[in-house]
């Protein structure tokens, strides 16, 4: 072999010289530790620290030898460095030594040097420049293995510059007569194209001939390269369409050639090449009927002729199925493919089962009915011990649910949900809620399923499940409401741990307590509760430590509602509610205080205030939520909108305002209830007393007195009376996570933080402007390095104000940054918020602000200016 000629030492001068030099050095220097001994030392180290000490000592020694230009032991030292590097210690200082080894004429040195280059080199420019030169030399070496090393290294570390510099050499080598070099060069070309796609042109001519080779190494690399080129540009893809017959022929030869010992892997002829070809066919045949047509036969042959007793056979079948599904193949072929997957599903090998599920999931959109046939097998996979398989099976199951099979599927999925790992429960329960909503055969079934989901998923359900369940119950016929309330009542008898279930149950009991206690035609598994039992349960859960704050908020509202549903027991309820007037939790305390008013001076309003809520419907979100904290009014529809515009009684409207959270709609949509404002004016004093400084009542003195309780902000207002609407809203906007999130014990505050317009507890609040029914407030909070000022403008007039623009100026010693406002249009009762950040550059300056507010009222421009200087106090 010509390989040896370059290295045959013979008796030339260089070798003698080298031998003498090495001899001298061996005498001069002590022999360094052998790699073997180093490894033993490291392995003998009992602690991490000990190991580190050994490595550090050795590294120090290796560094010193590098400095000394010692060449005999360089190889050994670099080899030691690899080991040290593999263990995770820094070894980059060996880079230059590797380059020296690469430059050495000896193959041994080169081999180690290139290995080092692949392992240790970072992307430093100067080193890359040096190695590019070495590579260039070695790529032209007469020895095939030297070229091989250079190609392998280039393939591993090619940077874009290197790729550009060496592309020409690689192209030459792709035509080399030596197969060993050629296959490596082809993969180098692959790598170069990866790094610098423009260079593809150079390699195109040399690529075409690759498929005519006999050598499998070249075939496989050639197919790899062509695949990369096809994925790179559509033009090349079209260019290579004509090789489909070649590929088909190669594949055919592989299948029909029979046993060839060279390429046989457990009875299959070169599966790796087959897989690569099938992949390339997939790319070529995609969306191309002609190319697909040319492949149909061979795919059918592969699918039927492959031996599947071993993994290898399945590998090929799997790729074949994917190809059949991806290209425009014949219908019969597709059926065959899905049947193969069906067989895979029953395979004992879990890898094959995984592959089957994975592929079915990918193809389910193509041919759902074919996949549907394997439903029972897929459901079986839900019980698989392997998490990965269960997850896939779950995803696939949800993809298969439809109107016909919903009952059966839901049953299986519920069993799965019950036993599922916590990480699945959230995803699974949400998907189930969605499926149930889409395909529920009856309302009763739907409600039962929701109940079962809540029971099975426990505290892992997502927030939206609670709100959507309540919404669905609310819009159900009243007899169904009674039935589900009974079931919910019974489901919370055993444990109070399940917060989402508790919230739904408590809401329903509060809302439909009369049917629970006195309704006809209800079936109880347990005994029908008496009033005192119900009140006692509420008392228990309001005092319990297992119950989180959100659930308690639900409970307190419900209990108050119950006072109008029960025939007796108002006194008891009043007692409980009043006790919350001094609760540590601000929100509960507030509710306690407010509700006790309803038992005191405003007793006469209680019945009408706490009437049943109108049914709610939510159209699914359309994602154009305006501003940060704004609720998109279009997302919520009031079902009885008409009746309210047609002049409902004052109390009714008031009820809406207070009870159902519909106030958001009223305040933000001009289309709802023109008579709105008059109604609110009439009920103003009640609003005030309740501390509910909603939109219209904000000028009342109550605000000031309640400042410390944070009542200024609209989210609080909304959460005071009714959680359920709020949770609905949280579903819609995503910002109102106020009451839906069961995982956070006191998300009342969290909700506040999420709301830009709500001033946190320690905020200083200044009224900047109160003129023409326009009310502008600034609340200031000290952040770590700046002061955050939130501006809230409320429109108390009957008119819609447009082009609202808020401008502010501060003294030069301050820096002002204004965030974008939440909107520019103020509907009657609407709000606009804007955040400002003020940085104080000199410590003793007092913050003053000049404000300029402009807007259009009925088309007339209005300009207001004012100054605020009370911040400093």
């Amino acid at each position: 072999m010509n390989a040896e000629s370059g290295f045959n030492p013979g008796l030339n001068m260089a070798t003698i010289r080298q031998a003498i030099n090495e001899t001298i050095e061996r005498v001069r220097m002590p022999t360094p530790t052998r790699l073997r001994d180093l490894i033993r030392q490291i392995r003998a180290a009992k602690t991490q620290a000990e190991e580190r000490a050994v490595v550090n000592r050795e590294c120090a020694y290796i560094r010193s030898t590098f400095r000394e230009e010692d060449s005999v032991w360089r190889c050994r030292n670099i080899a030691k460095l690899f080991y040290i590097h593999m263990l995770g210690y820094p070894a980059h200082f060996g880079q230059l030594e590797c380059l020296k080894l690469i430059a050495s004429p000896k193959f041994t040195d080169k081999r180690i040097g290139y290995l080092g280059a692949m392992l240790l080199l970072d992307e430093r420019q100067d080193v890359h420049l040096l190695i590019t030169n070495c590579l260039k030399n070695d790529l032209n070496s007469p020895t095939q293995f030297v070229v091989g090393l250079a190609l392998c290294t280039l393939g591993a570390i090619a940077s874009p510059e290197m790729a550009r510099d060496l592309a020409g050499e690689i192209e030459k080598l792709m035509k080399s007569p030596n197969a060993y070099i050629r296959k490596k060069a082809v993969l180098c070309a692959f790598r170069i194209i990866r790094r610098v796609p423009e260079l593809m042109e150079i390699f195109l001519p040399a690529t075409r001939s690759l498929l005519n080779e006999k050598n499998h190494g070249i075939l496989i690399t050639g197919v790899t390269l062509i695949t990369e080129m096809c994925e790179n540009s559509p033009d090349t893809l079209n260019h290579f369409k004509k090789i489909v017959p070649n590929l088909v022929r190669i594949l055919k030869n592989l299948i029909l050639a029979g046993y060839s010992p060279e390429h046989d892997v457990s009875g299959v002829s070169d599966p790796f090449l087959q897989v690569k070809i099938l992949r390339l066919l997939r790319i070529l045949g995609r969306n191309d009927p002609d190319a697909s047509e040319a492949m149909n036969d061979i795919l059918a042959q592969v699918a039927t002729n492959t031996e599947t007793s071993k993994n290898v056979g399945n590998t090929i079948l799997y790729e074949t199925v994917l190809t059949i599904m991806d290209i425009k193949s014949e219908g019969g072929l597709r059926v065959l493919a899905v049947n193969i997957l069906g067989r895979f599903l029953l395979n004992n090998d879990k890898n094959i089962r995984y592959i089957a599920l994975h592929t079915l999931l990918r193809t389910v959109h193509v041919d759902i009915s074919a996949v549907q046939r394997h439903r029972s097998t897929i459901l079986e996979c839900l019980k698989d011990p392997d998490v990965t398989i269960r997850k896939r099976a779950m995803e696939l199951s949800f993809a298969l649910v439809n109107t016909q099979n919903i009952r059966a599927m839901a049953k299986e999925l519920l069993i799965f949900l019950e036993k599922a790992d916590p990480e699945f429960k959230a995803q699974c329960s949400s998907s189930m809620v969605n499926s149930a909503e889409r395909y529920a055969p009856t309302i009763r079934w739907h409600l039962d399923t929701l109940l079962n989901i809540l029971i099975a998923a426990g505290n892992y359900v997502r927030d939206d499940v609670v709100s959507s369940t309540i919404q669905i119950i609310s819009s159900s016929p009243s007899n169904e409401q009674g039935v589900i309330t009974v079931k919910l009542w019974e489901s919370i008898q055993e444990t109070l741990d399940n917060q989402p279930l508790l919230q739904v149950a408590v809401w329903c009991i509060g809302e439909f307590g009369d049917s629970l206690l006195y309704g006809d035609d209800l079936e109880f598994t347990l005994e029908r509760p008496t009033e005192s039992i119900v009140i006692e349960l509420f008392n228990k859960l309001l005092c319990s430590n297992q119950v989180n704050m959100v659930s308690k908020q639900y409970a307190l509202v419900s209990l108050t509602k119950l006072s109008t549903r029960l025939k007796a027991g108002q006194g008891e309820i009043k007692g409980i509610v009043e006790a919350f007037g001094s609760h540590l939790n601000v929100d509960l305390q507030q509710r306690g205080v407010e509700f006790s008013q309803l038992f005191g001076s405003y007793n006469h309003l209680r019945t009408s205030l706490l009437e049943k809520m109108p049914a709610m419907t939510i159209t699914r979100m359309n994602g154009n939520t305006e501003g940060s904290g704004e609720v998109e009014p279009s997302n919520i529809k009031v079902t009885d909108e008409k009746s309210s515009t047609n002049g409902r009684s004052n109390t009714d409207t008031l009820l809406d305002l207070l009870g159902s959270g519909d106030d958001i709609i009223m305040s933000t949509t001009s289309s709802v209830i023109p008579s709105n404002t008059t109604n609110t004016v009439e009920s103003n004093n009640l609003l005030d007393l309740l501390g509910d400084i909603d939109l219209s009542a904000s000028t009342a003195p109550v605000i000031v007195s309640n400042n410390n309780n944070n009542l200024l902000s609209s989210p609080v207002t909304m959460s005071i009376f009714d959680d359920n609407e709020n949770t609905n809203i949280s579903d819609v906007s995503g910002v109102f996570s106020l009451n839906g999130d069961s995982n956070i014990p006191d998300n009342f505050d969290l909700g506040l933080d999420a709301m830009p317009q709500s001033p946190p507890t320690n905020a200083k609040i200044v009224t900047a402007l109160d003129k023409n029914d326009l009310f502008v407030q600034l609340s200031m909070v000290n952040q770590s390095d700046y002061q955050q000022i939130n501006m809230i403008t409320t429109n108390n007039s009957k008119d819609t104000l447009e082009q609202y623009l808020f401008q502010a100026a501060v003294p030069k010693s301050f820096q002002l940054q204004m965030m974008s406002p939440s909107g520019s249009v103020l509907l009657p009762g609407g709000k606009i918020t804007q955040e400002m950040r003020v940085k104080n550059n000199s410590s003793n300056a007092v913050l003053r602000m000049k404000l300029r507010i402009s807007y259009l009222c009925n088309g007339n421009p209005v300009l207001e200016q004012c100054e605020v200087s009370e911040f400093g106090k």
Partner: protein
Amino acid sequence: MIHAVLVFNNYGKPRLSKFYQHFSEQQQQTIIQETFQLISKREDCTCNFLELPSSFLMNASSDCKLIYRHYATLYFVFCCDESESELGILDLIQVFVETLDRSFSNVCELDLIFNSDVIHFIVNEIVQSGMVVQTNMNEILARVEEQNKICKAESGNVSAASSKAVSAMKNINLPQLKDKVFDLPNTFKDLKF
């Protein structure tokens, strides 16, 4: 594309790490450790694939899959993207391990520890630039063997020559010379050709 070939033992000690795109040393170690943590907690009855978010390989654009096999004390892990066939890579791991087995005759963890360079040479004959280059075991072994021969020939020649020279030097009774005449190392430093 194969992004990395990793071998580690049951305790997470790396025995081979080979990356086909550039990572800093720190990143490499993070990847190895995370891979170990993910795979070691999987039971043997589970499937040999693990899907990961693309963030796993710090800068990879596509999704990443771990495909692994567990042999006695060692895990062989291939970290690939979508363009590789999962089952195909399993076969490739088999080929890799069988090749090791044949070149070390009954390979064990110690062989990997003490011959890490050899393992690299073998990997380089199977996978190059993150793509399979050769799967024929005979071919792989033959090429590695040929290269080993060249190395052996070189070291044989040089070391034979130099050891002869060493013995010749020893014969002139160096220590004595050193004591009497001059400081040897310094002299020899200048003596280089």
